[in-house]
């Protein structure tokens, strides 16, 4: 780097009327500035610092999570899900995000993060309504403190900031944790959300799951930054870089960030490096843009395998525990399979119910029209009015 001049070498030193005043914050300065070196790669030793119970909980959720992913993918083949963006390979991030939160905290998932919601305790069937083609949000976000799965990338991040800010205004010590992908960091909403969070010192944690791809576009076409965690610097918040396949490490970083947020320390940006083992969704063909070799390399760094090695090393992976874990996951999958094979009850009139708190006269007319059409179709014993594309 060419430095035209070093700071302090001005001969005008002392003549200047002090540092330019506008440069000084005119309100109390933000309590946090980024560290001189704003990021750390966290290694994989975190597991040995966690207590056994938590470690086992993480493991149980990872195994269930993997099973959930394979089951959901199977459901797409059976026509029971319209589409499924798998988080296979990313279970450590999903599970750690869920477990790092207290019950009163909020999770802001993207469309890929149904598993995080499920690991938080949401009924998998409710988590999947959007993806099965039923109503967009199958659960009450306020009841479970999980925002709707967000499809337009990065647009949920300002929501998380606003909610966390509102909670603080109300005096509640609630933290919001928002998930976003590497691709999503390129959107303007990412930038605006992080900036608002830092200016407001909102209790929010941003977790970037950097799985290397945005559909087919690799990270190198997404950013020239040394890491996505480096982006924290430009907002004046701490950035953390973590091995996203190491569940205890992700859990540790997130727990620390959540704690800091809860204590008034403001937002943190966490980048977890992981890998999307499956295609973007079942509709995608990943062979068009990456090699089988690459996938295999990553499978050797599988979050469940890593965890099992760790548990074994600590003598925690007994046969009983392993079997119990497996059985629990199978049970969940069987239940999910069975319930997803039942058609959900559908009422076409619901189309008009929640557009506004009360139906407008226009919507009442349209609802009457649809009702009449359906009645006429039923009377003539023909199938109901259908689009014929």
């Amino acid at each position, binding site marked *: 780097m060419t430095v035209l001049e070093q700071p302090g070498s001005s001969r005008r030193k002392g003549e200047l009327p002090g540092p330019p005043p506008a440069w000084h914050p005119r309100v109390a300065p933000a309590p946090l500035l980024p560290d001189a070196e704003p990021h750390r790669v966290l290694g994989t030793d975190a597991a040995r610092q966690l207590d056994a119970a938590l470690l086992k909980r993480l493991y149980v959720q990872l195994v269930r999570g993997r099973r959930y992913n394979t089951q959901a993918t199977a459901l797409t083949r059976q026509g029971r899900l319209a589409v499924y963006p798998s988080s296979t390979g990313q279970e450590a991030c999903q599970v750690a995000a869920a477990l790092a939160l207290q019950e009163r905290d909020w999770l802001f998932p993207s469309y890929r993060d149904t598993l995080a919601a499920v690991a938080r305790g949401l009924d998998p069937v409710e988590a999947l309504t959007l993806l099965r083609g039923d109503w967009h*949000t199958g659960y009450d976000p306020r009841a479970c403190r999980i925002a709707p799965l967000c499809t337009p990338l990065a647009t949920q991040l300002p*929501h998380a*900031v*606003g909610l966390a*800010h*509102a909670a603080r205004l109300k005096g509640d010590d609630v933290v919001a944790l928002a998930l976003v992908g590497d691709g999503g960091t390129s959107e303007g*909403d990412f*930038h605006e959300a992080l900036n*608002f969070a830092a200016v407001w010192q909102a209790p929010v944690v941003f977790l970037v799951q950097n799985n290397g791809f945005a559909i087919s576009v690799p990270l190198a076409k997404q950013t020239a930054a040394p890491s996505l965690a480096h982006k924290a610097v430009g907002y004046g918040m701490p950035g953390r870089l973590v091995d996203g396949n190491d569940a205890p490490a992700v859990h540790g970083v997130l727990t620390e960030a959540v704690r800091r947020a809860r204590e008034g320390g403001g937002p943190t940006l966490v980048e977890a490096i992981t890998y999307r083992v499956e295609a973007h969704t079942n509709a995608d063909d990943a062979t068009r843009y990456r090699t089988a070799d690459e996938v295999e390399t990553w499978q050797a760094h599988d979050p469940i395998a890593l965890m099992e090695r760790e548990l074994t090393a600590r003598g925690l992976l007994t046969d009983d525990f392993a079997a119990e874990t497996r059985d629990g996951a199978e049970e969940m999958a069987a239940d999910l399979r069975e319930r997803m094979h039942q058609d959900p009850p559908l009422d076409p009139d619901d189309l008009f119910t929640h*557009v506004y708190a009360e139906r407008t006269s226009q919507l009442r007319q349209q609802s009457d029209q649809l009702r009449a059409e359906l009645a006429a179709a039923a009377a003539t014993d023909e199938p109901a009015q259908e689009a014929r594309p």
Partner: protein
Amino acid sequence: MTPTAATARKPATMAQALTRALRDALAEDPTVHVMGEDVGTLGGVFRVTDGLTAEFGEDRCTDTPLAEAGILGTAVGMAMYGLRPVVEMQFDAFAYPAFEQLVSHVAKMRNRTRGALPMPLTIRIPYGGGIGGVEHHSDASEAYYLATPGLQVVTPATVEDAYGLLRAAIASDDPVVFLEPKRLYWSKADWSPEAPGEVPPLGRAAVRRRGADATLITYGPSLPVCLEAAEAARAEGWDLEVVDLRSLMPFDDETVCASVRCTGRAVVVHESSGFGGPGGEIAARITERCFHHLEAPVLRVAGFDIPYPPPMLERHHLPGVDRILDTVARLQWESDWTEGRGV
């Protein structure tokens, strides 16, 4: 109520009535939060939020960073937590960066969650031309909001309505795009904040002038122009009715159709471009409902189908009295009228 000293009506501007509406809403409901660019210390570039931060503190009336999507997006999150944000967009065209948040979240959140997450947001947007504003400061952008199910679109044209409709918008459990006709900010009427008038329900048009020959249907900045046109028309022997829509969505079919069924002729007047603008919708729905009462097609007086022109030319673009009267004259008053002026 008989006016007392305290409630005596004095001249007040629309901007003052809006300020009062915000103030009263903040005072009555602790969940109301005002936010936007320069709404705090400065009181907004139109001074509509003047004094609110001083009275209610920075947490209730907040200067945000300069990012409209961020403002609206964080307001969505605040609403998710139970607050009632009132967002100011500084000018019409500067609401566009927030378009995605508006269309994909504000308008859809209640529906998406089957009622679990209502969006009681008010988005105040100064709109329209006639103030000599340079480009991006004069857009009449209501067509975008009208085409977005889930939003309510409201615009006052009088001082009293400015207060009442804004209170109603803030009180509504559904999002309202509240369009403030910026050239009427300084319009005056006798009005007292102590007796502000009833808070009208959203979705009700008002007949501002009774007339028998034809109906002018309008809203916001064009109402005074239409009233002036109706006055001028009297001199030419026409008796015009003037309907102020006040709320474009919900749309008050009843009031509008009742008027047109009586007069048999109608002209829709608005500033925004004609093509794809609100006038097409209004004319079409009147025609659907009142076809056999119509003596002539519903005509439109609208801005031209051009980007908003520079100040020196804007007077040619905006609907004016003469253009309205010329259009009224085309409503086939002679019984031997024949078609064929071509396409």
